[in-house]
Structure formats: C-alpha cells, structure tokens
C-alpha cells in the first residue's frame, strides 16, 4: 500500500505495524501520537496510551511497561530526549527492549526547532543502539527492524530522523501489509519480567563487581547486535524488497575520494557525487546508517581502497572535533591492517544551517586539492 506521508506519519505507521502495546507520550511529538492513536483506535487492538507531562516521565512509563513484558514505543526530540538521560541507562542496563524515535533537533539555548544530531549523538555511550535515517521510507522500515533487533539482543534502541529537514516533508511511502510484518516481527516474549507468579526484583541494589559484569555483557550484546542488525536488514530486504545495509556504499567503485556522512545530509551528498561522477571525477559516498554499535569492520572494508576520506559531520564535540570523524578515524587507524588514507574532518550546517550542494562541493574541492587536511576540524559555511 503506497501513501503520501510526512515523516512523522511514517513513524506512526512503523510503530503501528510493529504492534506496539504501550505508548508513552508527552506533548512535543503530538502529531506522531495522534496518528498512532487514530490507527490503534480504528482496529480496536486495545493498545494503551499513557499521557504524561514530560519525556523523562514518558521513558519512565516505557521502562516500567517494558519490564512488565510489553512492546513499548515512545518519541522524543532534542530538549526532550535529554531529560531521558538517566532513564536511558536504566533501560539499557536493565536490558529492556524499548524503542525510542528521536526527531533530531539542535541543542541550543533558544530552543531552535531546526535539525542537528547532537541530541542523539550525545547519548552514544548509554548502551542504546542508534539508527540514523535518510528518508520517510527508511524511518518506517527501520522502526520495524529496530523492534526485532532490540528484542533479540535485549538492548534498547533509538531511531533517528531529522527535524524540519525531513519530519514535515511529504513523500510517497510504501507501507507493508500487517501479515508480512507479523511474519517478520514475532510477538515480544521476555523471559525476565515483572510477573507475580515468578517474582524477581528489577534494578535492585547491587555490588560494583556485578555492575561491572553488566557493562561487559552489554558490550558483548552490542557485538551481537551488529550481526543481528545485519540479518534483520537482509531478511527485511528479502521480504519487502527494501534493504539498506548498516552502511551504504554509493558509487564507491574505483572511488579515490569517499565522502562519509549520515542522516538527511546523505541526500544532498548523493546529488553532488552524481555530478562529480558525470564529470568523470572518482568520488563516492559512504552512508553510515547504524551509529551504535559502530560498524567499524564494514567501514574499514568500504574505505580500504580510497586514497582520501572526507567525513562530513553535522555536529561537533567542542574541544575535539566532528563526532563521526572521531569514530571513522578510530576505526581506520586503531586496528591492523592500518589504512593509509588521509582523513579530512568537515563540520557543516550546525544547528540546522542549510547544507546546500555548493557546501558539499566545497568539501570535494578542498579534499581533492590537498594531500592532507590543514586543520583537524574544517568548518564550512560558517560566519567567522
């Protein structure tokens, strides 16, 4: 079934097709929840909506419901994801398969509603897996995949889409039918849950050595999540004809320079790569779809033949550099065999500033003209 949907509606459909049971909602994501409520009411599934007054509360509701064995859905956005921070740890260390959709927004004092990835990237160390999506279709498909991954490895996950740049754009979306989704995504069955017939305590007072062990197991589960995510995407592709890969190589064949980026920036970069190729320039694109666990092995192999790598970040870690740049660099150089490519770190379009094709063009020009980057962080399109 094809429909014209905004990205927010695509989120609602993704959650609806995943048969979510408890929906914890607060105000800023009203459109998603409204649409989801309409869908759930129409077919009388009896999904429970709990309306609370903050996102911290929303995730607390989600964590409680997930611990009771239900499939849980909630939404957040920038200033509303941040109050969830403590609860993010609670969910991951309790190994609860909660899925949160984050509508990426910049973190600025004025409460800007433009896009920016810092809200989700700042939570990279909380033990949640993280998908960064490019389009409405990808968002919907990824939500369904996320539930499968989450319930298999018992780790919570964030599915990220860009505010404004994508969240309000109307695009055709192919909605898979419920029967096929049910075949792909089995009902949520947790062994450890709050059950009066088998009483256990959750998140109880604990010793350092046990907590240490929890982190070790979480790291192991992240390793497993990589394989599970790869398989989840393969199976999805077989069933619905749409696969995305954990990373996507676009025109990387024989590319000397590869641009690495994520999220909605990818759309613009794709366009520029096409233009470059039309002019006979050997430029390719590597899109990083899964940010946590970071698919280092896939990235290493994708970039193994490139002479130059340009990482395009939409965010910066002040005092260090682009966040994706750090991740890519460490996955290229910290493990043998070491790759000799020169890695350029660009920061573009922070806080929702427009990332037009000419900015990406500047990235290509800068990289092709130089053997090595002149500075660690190359700021483009910024007022100085």
């Amino acid at each position: 079934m094809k429909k014209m949907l905004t990205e927010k509606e695509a989120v609602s459909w993704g959650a609806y097709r995943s048969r979510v049971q408890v929906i914890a909602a607060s105000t800023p994501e009203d459109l998603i929840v409204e649409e989801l409520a309409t869908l759930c009411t129409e077919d009388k599934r009896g999904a429970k909506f709990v309306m609370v007054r903050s996102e911290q509360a929303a995730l607390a509701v989600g964590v409680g419901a997930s611990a009771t064995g239900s499939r849980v859905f909630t939404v957040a956005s920038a200033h509303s994801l941040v109050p969830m921070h403590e609860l993010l740890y609670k969910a991951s260390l309790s190994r609860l398969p909660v899925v949160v959709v984050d509508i990426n927004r910049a973190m600025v004092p004025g409460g800007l509603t433009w896009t920016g990835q810092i809200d989700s990237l700042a939570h990279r160390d909380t033990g949640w897996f993280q998908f960064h999506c490019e389009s409405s279709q990808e968002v919907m498909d990824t939500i369904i995949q996320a539930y499968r991954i989450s319930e298999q490895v018992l780790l919570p996950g964030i599915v990220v889409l860009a505010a404004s740049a994508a969240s309000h754009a109307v695009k055709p979306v192919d909605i898979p039918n419920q029967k096929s989704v049910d075949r792909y995504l089995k009902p949520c069955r947790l062994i450890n849950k709050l059950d009066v017939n088998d009483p256990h305590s959750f998140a109880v007072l604990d010793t350092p050595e046990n907590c240490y062990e929890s982190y070790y197991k979480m790291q192991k589960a992240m390793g497993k999540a990589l394989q599970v995510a790869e398989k989840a995407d393969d199976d999805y592709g077989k069933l619905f004809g749409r696969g995305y890969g954990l990373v996507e190589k676009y025109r990387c064949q024989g590319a000397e320079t590869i641009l690495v980026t994520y999220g909605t920036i990818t759309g613009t970069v794709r366009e520029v790569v096409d233009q470059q190729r039309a002019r006979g320039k050997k430029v390719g694109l590597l899109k990083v779809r899964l940010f946590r666990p970071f698919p280092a092995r896939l990235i290493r192999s994708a970039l193994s033949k490139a002479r130059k790598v340009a990482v395009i970040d939409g965010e910066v870690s002040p005092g260090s550099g682009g966040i994706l740049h750090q991740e890519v660099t460490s996955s290229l150089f910290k493990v043998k065999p070491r790759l000799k490519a020169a890695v350029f770190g660009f920061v573009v379009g922070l806080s929702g500033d427009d990332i037009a094709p000419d900015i990406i063009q500047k990235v290509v020009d800068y990289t092709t003209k130089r053997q090595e980057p002149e500075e660690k962080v190359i700021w483009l399109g910024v007022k100085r």
Partner: protein
Amino acid sequence: MRHVLPRSQVQNFKIPKMEIMGSGHSICPGCGISLSLRYALKGLGRKTILVVPACCCSNADGSLLYTAANVPVFYAAYGTAAFAVSGIRAALDFQGKTDVQVVLWAADSNNRNFEFWTMNGADRREENFICVCCDDQAAIKARFPKSDFRGGLVEIMAARGISYAATASVAYPDDFIDKFHKAKRINGTRLIHIHLPCPPLWKISANLSIQMARLAVQTRLFPLYEVENGEKYTVNVIPDRGFPVEEFLRPQGRFQHLTNMQTEVIQKDVERNWKSLLNRAAE
C-alpha cells in the same frame, strides 16, 4: 483504648498466618519499614508488584541475589516512581492482568518531596494504584516538627477526591493490615500514609520503636483514620484518654532542645487538629 472498625467489606477478613515476605532484608534494627512491608503484603497478597524509588525502602527488599519481598519489585529512577507505576499498570491492563495490584512503596522525605508531584500526576491520570508513604519523619530532622505532624498527605489527596486515603501505624498491626486489605478491593488512586519510627534519626534505642510509634497515636499526634472518596471520614482508633505530647517527645533525642513553651504550642496544635478531625468524621 477503643478500636472502631465499621467496615462491612472486611468483616470476615482474618490476618493470614502465612508470611509472604522472607528473610534477607537489609533494614536497620528497630526500623518500621521491614515490619510495614511484612504487614502490607499480608493484606495485599501475592498478586502485588512493588515500585520503589531510591529511598530507605530500597533496602527493604535486600540486595541482589538475597531479595526478601517475594513479590516482583521494580526500582524506579529518582522522581519517576509514579510514572513507572503507570507503565506497569498499562502493560498489566493490556495483558488482561487486572487483578494484580501495583503499589508505589516509598519512604521518608522521598515521597513527600521527590515523588509527591509525580503522584499528583498519577492522580490526575486517574491511575489505578496504591501509593504508600513510609513516613519516618526524616524530612523534619532540621525543622520544628509542628506542621509535619498534621498528616497533610492524606488531607491533600483526600481533597483531590481519591477513592481511598488512610493513615496507618506499625504499632497497630490489625488496623494496618485491614487497611491494605480494604485498599486492595477499591479501584482508583489509593494512598496509605504509614507512620513508623527511625531509631537513629529519632535518637531512641531500637527496642523502644514500637512503643514510640504507639505513643504517636495515643498522644493523637498521628491519628489513625481513613477517608473514602474524599468525603467519608472514619477515625479508626480513638484513645480513651489522650496522653500529653510530651510523652512522645521527651524520650527522643531529636526533641531534647524543645522548651516547655514549644511543647505547649505543639500540644495546642495537636488538640486543634484532633478536634477538627473528629468534626469531619461526625459530619
């Protein structure tokens, strides 16, 4: 001492001999929290899920591998216990397990300060749960105790018209267990405010704790009563003669600084509150 228990629903209720709570809790000697949990579970039965925020009550269940509650316990993050309750309730309702009670079990100042506003929200959502405040008066250690003896929690929640609000004391186990058993049979937001002693804070020896808890009721500092639907007041325990508050205050190290004049102020306050409570019950 006269006990008034005019409750038709619980006429045939006998305190079960069976213990749900096991050994292994890590509560201090003489503290009323472990006793409260033991009594409460007798009234509530096994179909109970406890939600505990970070507070003294976190110890009531013991630590990992040695938990004592014998019912499922969920430890909520700071200031989110009532929301966790809502999530658990929603999941149980979705699964059709409507006979399972969700109980927010919080201690000391936590419930009054940290969790109170979340409880307010739960009440606004007309959440179906029992909220328990184990009040060891820890919040008042640095303050003049006058206002805190008023049992304001029950009054506030009763004013919001919740289906059941009651006080209970560990020194009156029959009344205590009865109230939990009664609360279990009512739907909607229910509150039970438990008064219990904290020996290190009150600066009393552990063997005096039940005696002190009883004196709080006998001096009418902490009256045992209940409010149904915010309207129907019932005073459950009416002391034959009210002991002077001094009897409760004097043995406690924490009140050694009180002057006679201050004690008199407390006495007057207590009498005024007691009279107004009796008036409400007579209406």
